[in-house]
């Protein structure tokens, strides 16, 4: 299992390190404004080509970069309905508290489950390699969390069913 995970995460890590070369860039469209160009999308020449790193068709990472911001969108593996609900609740919980996460986006990009927006102001305040480490760790952890939640959900359901049905035996 871990054999395919390592190359996938290494590919995401090197792509993110290259994509996170950001600098302060004032808007060319509106004077005295400074916007993340990947969100504004007005000037085509300051946007880089978006890149998708995929492990399989269910797990993908979309990295869109520009001169002053990077948007990383992750599609989490959701094998069945329970996992779909759990992933949705989990990401919703995180995204509602996006302010404490600083780099989290409140709304994911269409087709993906969660999105991060890193701007040049974030790379000025925080180490770039630590930001990349954080995103990679997040990708590893979210799978573990959802499996854990599913296991405990199933265990609780079994206990509840047993204790309820035991009165009919």
């Amino acid at each position, binding site marked *: 299992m871990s054999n395919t995970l390592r190359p996938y995460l290494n590919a995401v890590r090197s792509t993110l390190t*290259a994509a996170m070369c950001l600098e*302060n860039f*004032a808007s060319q469209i509106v004077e005295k404004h400074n916007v993340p160009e990947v969100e504004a999308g007005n000037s085509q020449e*300051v946007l880089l080509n978006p890149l998708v790193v995929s492990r399989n068709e269910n797990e993908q990472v979309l990295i869109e970069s520009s001169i002053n911001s990077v948007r990383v969108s992750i599609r989490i593996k959701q094998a069945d309905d329970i996992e779909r609900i759990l992933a949705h609740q989990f990401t919703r919980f995180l995204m509602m508290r996006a302010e404490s996460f600083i780099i989290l986006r409140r709304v994911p990009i269409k087709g993906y489950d969660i999105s991060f927006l890193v701007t040049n102001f974030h790379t*000025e305040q925080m*180490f770039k390699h630590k930001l990349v480490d954080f995103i990679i760790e997040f990708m590893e952890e979210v799978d573990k969390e959802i499996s854990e939640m599913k296991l405990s959900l199933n265990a609780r359901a079994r206990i509840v069913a047993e204790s309820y049905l035991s009165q009919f035996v």
Partner: protein
Amino acid sequence: MGLLDEHNFPFCVTAHAFNRDKSQVAVCPNSNEVHIYARSGTQWALAHVLGEHDLLVTSIDWAPQTNRIVTCSQDKNAYVWTQDAGGAWRPTLVHLRIRRAATQARWSPREDKFAVGSGDRCVAVCYFGEDNDWWVSKHLRRPIASTVLSVAWHPNNVLLACGGTDAKARVLSAFIKGVDEKPAPSPWGERLPFGTLCGEFDAPAGGWVHGVAFAPDGNALAFATHDASLSVASPQTASVVSVRTPGLPLVALSWPAQSTIVAAGHDCSPVVFARDGDTWRVARRLGEDDQRRSAAASPSGNSAFNLFRQLDSRSQPARASGGDGALKSVHQNTITAVRADPAGGSDVSSSGLDGKLALWSVGA
């Protein structure tokens, strides 16, 4: 070759400029102010605060001979500061006429003009207009198509190189009638009225041009692009020689001696390029073989042992940083500016987003 001096400021240094004898340095602490620090022993003490701009100050240049400072900012303004008899710095208005942010300002070699690159897709060349007692500008517009990220002057005071987000490095003529005399013929061209395009170059894989610099004799132009390569264009052979570096893009460069280029960027350590006949190659990276730094990264001294132990027990691949997250290089974050020695020597200074200001000796 190596680190001469370093100083940590408690803020990101957006831009820096030394005066002629390097006894004072003007820095922008990632805000709308410019701080001037004067050397006191081994430390820098705050001497003046220049606060005329409204938004981030993007560039500072200190003219070594005339002792004037030009600053430009994202609020579409530039000011020329002169020191009065009492030692205080007074701003002079510059009629820049740009409609977007200014990105870089540089004095010409003779310090009678300066060029300001802007997001308005032009370079404003400014000279002093005696009749109104302010600096007036002429714009270089065609064929620049997007934000100009960096400008550099040719030693003859007339030619100007600019590079920006339209992925081209250009050499244009900034000849101002009344300020300049006719320049000597050069490999870049003979008759050079204002605005003549003398050369247009791009990098092998494309990419925004982050920094440009002329050779000390002016016969070649080096530019650093976002595809992590350094290209050198020479008009005599009409060729562009590129060196692809294996790391992250280079953002700032300086050409201190005829066969040495120093460039730095997102890899957080300056790279020295040496001439190899007709081509250039990466000679060395500065600051990464510092003994105390590599010892600090692995306190037990057995970094290879620790590496494999970590790989085995925690299946964690090799990390570029030490245990506390610090990088092996001197700078801990992107280097945003590399400046040449204002006195003309071969030392370079670098400043970055980690707040460090470092002086390097490069040799020649």
